């Protein structure tokens, strides 16, 4: 919890890119651009499909070279919020090739990614929030508040 507004299950990153907001938005929403940067080093993104509208689905395949040969990982999700070209919120779950959820050890079944873009004199300030438990998940109301309270408690016990 080094960043402001972080809850115990979230991670916040901020970065400024020397590019206009519209172009950074395309980095996230256009498959050809997305494929160019998203994969970790040594991985490629053979599939990226985005239906960029609220409720629209997304599907990403990551191909990693492993000692056991090429390994493919699939991710599926849904767009929760779209405010072109400044805000994109989507869920992400690990799935098999057919889109059936697989539950990796030690991870919540679904995570939420929030991208916020802001013009800064021709450059783009990007704020990324990756949340372990999506705000839009069933019964999430009050969760953030509860987490905030817990965060205080956690902090207190860390410093103990």
């Amino acid at each position, binding site marked *: *919890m080094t960043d402001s507004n*972080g809850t*115990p*299950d*979230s*991670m916040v*990153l901020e*970065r400024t*890119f*020397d*590019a206009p907001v519209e*172009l*950074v938005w395309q*980095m996230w929403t256009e498959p050809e*651009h997305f494929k*160019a*940067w*998203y994969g*970790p*080093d040594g991985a490629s993104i053979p599939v990226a499909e985005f239906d960029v509208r609220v409720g629209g689905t997304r599907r990403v395949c990551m191909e990693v070279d492993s000692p056991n040969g090429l390994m493919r990982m699939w991710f599926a999700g849904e767009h929760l919020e779209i405010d072109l070209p400044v805000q994109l919120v989507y869920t992400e779950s690990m799935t098999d090739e057919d889109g059936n959820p697989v*539950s990796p*050890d*030690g*991870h*919540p*079944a679904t995570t939420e990614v929030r991208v916020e873009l802001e013009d800064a004199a021709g450059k783009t300030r*990007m704020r*990324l929030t*990756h*949340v*372990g*438990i999506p705000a839009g*998940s069933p*019964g999430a*109301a*009050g*969760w953030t*508040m*509860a987490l905030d*309270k*817990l965060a*205080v*408690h*956690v902090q207190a*016990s*860390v410093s103990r």
Partner: protein
Amino acid sequence: MGTAVDEDRLSETFAALANTTRRAILGRLARGAATVNELAEPFELTLPAISKHIKVLEEAGLIVRGRQAQYRPCALDAAPLREVSNWAERYRPVWEARFARMDDYLRQLQAQSKEKRTR
């Protein structure tokens, strides 16, 4: 960190947290210890139902229970929540590397379009 045991425990923590009633119970316990009866009060649930939720939280290590006779007050144990926090932090280096690549890619892209324009 990063052992199989930790991973199992983290899964258990997330499973325990994936329920509104249990999160509300934790929210209540963040204000101080309480008995099962006190915890049951705000919910329209039977004592056995509440006890079930408490058992899940206890097994996930999120609450500890006292030994005082039949009351056995519940208290929050924040340690597993710290692991949840660590979980989210695991994503940081992944995203940082991605953004470094995005930065490079944006530079290339803009250099190319500049070149086209000046040609």
